[in-house]
């Protein structure tokens, strides 16, 4: 047989294997492996959901804290400078009611004695 003929013979014989490919048998442990993998994936997903919740909650809580602080500081600042605030008005009312303010007569006496 010539080399060319030999090559063609080998190619044909090899292609004939397509019709006689060995069949692998199933694995009796495959189902167990599949079940184990499903459990692993389920556990991993739970963990991932937990991490995601924490990842979202953390910055959200931080944001809320900062906003509350800002509001508190702003309100304190406003209350200390605003004379018409309810607190200021209450203080003034009490001073007037009980004459707690500086009395001109006592002022006269205190200055006379000096």
């Amino acid at each position: 047989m010539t080399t060319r003929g030999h090559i063609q013979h080998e190619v044909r014989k090899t292609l004939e294997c397509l019709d006689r490919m060995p069949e692998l048998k199933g694995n009796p442990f495959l189902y167990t492996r599949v079940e184990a993998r499903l459990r692993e994936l389920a556990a991993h997903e739970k963990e991932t959901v937990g991490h995601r919740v924490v990842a979202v909650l953390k910055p959200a809580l931080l944001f809320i804290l900062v906003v509350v602080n800002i509001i508190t500081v702003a309100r304190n600042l406003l209350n200390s400078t605003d004379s018409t605030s309810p607190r200021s008005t209450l203080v003034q009312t009490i001073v007037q009611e009980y004459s707690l303010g500086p009395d001109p007569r006592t002022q006269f006496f205190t200055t006379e004695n000096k």
Partner: protein
Amino acid sequence: MLQKLTQRESVEERELGERLAAGDREAFRLLVDRYQAKVINTCYGFLGTKEDAEDTAQEVFVQIFRSIGKFRGESMLSTWIYRIAVTRSLDAVRAKNRMKRMDHLKQLLGLSEIMNEPKAPDNLAPDIQLEEKERVDLLLRSIETLPENQRVAITLAKLEGLSYAEVADVMETTLASVESLLFRARKNLEKVLSKYFERRSVDHPRPGTPHEEHRRDMA
């Protein structure tokens, strides 16, 4: 070899699909037992080793379980299973090729030792015919060189024994397209194998051939 399903088998398949969709674990076990050989053999046709085929088959059944809700019953359950097996096998092939390219790059950069890849059995004496096993290995390696769609068609039709119509269903294409793919796949395999045997005949010339005489003279 997959035989054409009888009417009774089609009904059984449909019932199995319904039980699976309802979350019946026992039905899933039955599905794995019934189809694992087919799935493993399909994966083997793409991946070439039993270990890789079983690893990929495991992923196929995991995907089947997790996505059974998406199975609408528009195709046969077996067709749907084959589609998942083919998709997963191709993904595994691409991942393997990526690893090979990374390894090759690492070798070029001196980042890893040279890995010796298993070679074709070309250390056999030239007058000894290839054993059947070596032919099968050679054939599987040659199929790896085919374009993806030709590879899928030939694996399903020849290695899994599906009819052309079933292959067309799995590949979601026409019968004519499958016939064309198989024709081109065979031609390409002939080319690849011819080149391989030509190279072998130069490296290991047969007695009495011009190549062999030339080598004897040079020695």
